[in-house]
């Protein structure tokens, strides 16, 4: 077999791999979409579940998920940005810098169920928040923190030196430079990171299972210490533990579709945003 033929064969195999991956994506999304489309309606999104999820909607689960995203937004975004600023601007080659980088790197690799155990031990039990939105929200916040830090760090590190130098040359302090020049420049990248972190938090189930997600509720949560429902867990519960799997199947599909659209929608927004600002600022 000569060299040219070998090359053609190998390259075709590689193209095949890429095709396979795209196919997997299409099949997955396609089946969920086709199964869930029929139940999708405004009523579905705004009604409470009825008759053990054989009728009605998923409103409380949607609300629960949104509340969780809000908590994550409020907690992990500021901490994440502040950490990223510190890592890029203040601490570079020192030992502490390496320790921090290693900590963030390893946090990113912790399995989601282990975060559940953490949340259970610290928020539910030790701090006494109980099985609540707050416990779950804080747990998710810690979980997406590495993601937030990575994204913010990339965005901040991409700010060109010249911007900082110009500011320093005019006598500005470090923080003034960061606040007035670096952060605004890095904002689109940071924003992308925020969207990706929140979307990740919205899709997680395992931590919720250990920090108190409810199967069904009569009413929406009143405060952060109240119990809550959430989309991912709702899917899990219906698909594995409903009393009548066949009857709830349409709603299972539809809920999966809603979650998929939510997460996919956010991911797409993040991707488009990043592309637009990369082109504009030439990352």
């Amino acid at each position: 077999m000569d060299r040219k033929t070998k090359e053609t064969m190998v390259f075709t195999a590689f193209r095949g791999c890429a095709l396979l991956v795209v196919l997997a994506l299409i099949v997955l999304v396609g089946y969920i979409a086709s199964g869930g489309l029929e139940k999708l309606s405004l009523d579905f999104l705004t009604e409470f579940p009825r008759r053990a999820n054989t009728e009605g909607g998923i409103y409380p689960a949607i609300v629960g998920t949104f509340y969780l995203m809000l908590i994550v937004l409020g907690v992990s975004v500021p901490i994440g940005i502040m950490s990223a600023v510190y890592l890029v601007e203040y601490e570079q080659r020192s030992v502490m810098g390496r320790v921090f980088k290693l900590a963030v790197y390893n946090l990113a690799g912790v399995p989601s169920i282990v975060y559940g155990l953490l949340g259970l031990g610290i928020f539910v039990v030790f701090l006494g928040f109980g099985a609540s939105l707050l416990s779950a929200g804080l747990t998710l916040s810690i979980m997406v923190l590495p993601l937030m830090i990575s994204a913010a760090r990339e965005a901040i590190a991409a700010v060109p030196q010249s911007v900082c130098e110009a500011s320093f040359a005019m006598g500005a302090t470090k923080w003034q430079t960061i606040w007035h020049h670096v952060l605004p420049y890095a904002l689109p990248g940071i924003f992308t990171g925020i969207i990706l972190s929140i979307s990740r938090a919205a899709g997680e189930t395992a931590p919720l299972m250990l920090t108190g997600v409810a199967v069904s509720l009569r009413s929406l949560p009143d405060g952060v210490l109240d119990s809550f429902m959430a989309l991912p867990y709702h899917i899990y519960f219906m698909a594995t533990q409903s009393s009548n799997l066949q009857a709830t199947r349409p709603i299972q599909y539809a809920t999966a579709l809603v979650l998929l659209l939510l997460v996919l929608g956010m991911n797409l927004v993040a991707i488009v945003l990043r592309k637009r600002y990369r082109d504009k600022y030439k990352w």
Partner: protein
Amino acid sequence: MALIFARKDRPSQRTRRVTHMKPSERLIQMALTIATWSSVVALGAVFGELLLGAFPAFTSIDLLGFFTGTVWNPAHPLYPLYGILPLVVGTMLVSFGAALMAIPIGLGCSIWLAELAHPKIKAVFKPAIEILSGIPSVIFGFFALVILSQWIYDLLDPTMKLNALNGAILLAVMMIPIMVTVAEDAMNSVPMNLREASLALGATRWETIRRVVLPSSLSGIVAAIVLSFGRAVGETMTVLMATGNTPVITSDYLRSVQTMTAAIAIDFGEVEFYSVHYHVLFAVGLVLFVMTFAINILADWVVRRYKEDY
């Protein structure tokens, strides 16, 4: 993931110790330091919490039996058995099976992306990979539970409908985006002039990839494999819904198994707080954490030690 190949670190702004800093600046720097410490604290908290939760188990059950026992039946009313081996075997069976599928496909994809793809197609494909990596695991699990298991059932007539193969396939799909991202990044960082040198010597494109690009980016590729494997080991929802949750030691992919992650998630629904079972679950969590921690450290070490300098 960008942390591994962080190339954009800027040199320290200050080489001299700062002596004049406004109080407000000091305050801000302190606040930033505290925020950054939160990551270290969080990691410590994870480890500490696991130890705390697992410790009572070490004193109340046969520890050797825990690590070597072949039966996991903690909920038995009279004779509970806490052997972790079935769970470890379950995790490894599913993860290795997934790796076997994900590695060749993921590598093929990365090479295509890094070396062969037309920029316009690349611009569509890369977002597609990102989207794939953003799909919640519960949806993969749902797909496995409802759809893939039926296909496997129709095609292979398995002993049980929910089995290790079901989980392995979907886990492979979840592993591929990580593999592709990290490996492609590694291949892209091989400078163009090395490829030029190879081509100018009369090599074909494939020979250049095989003899120059791949060996040069090997550390990154290995890291990609190790990292994605770590992800598979730590995955919960997909295997929970796909593999049937039967803790047994088996090598038959068409049987139900249970992974460590699934055992923790599922048992916690019924476990009594502070019972032995409760603490043993923390112990399983600790073992799981140590495993994934070791895998991640390994990936980082491989890159650090073996990265080529060109």
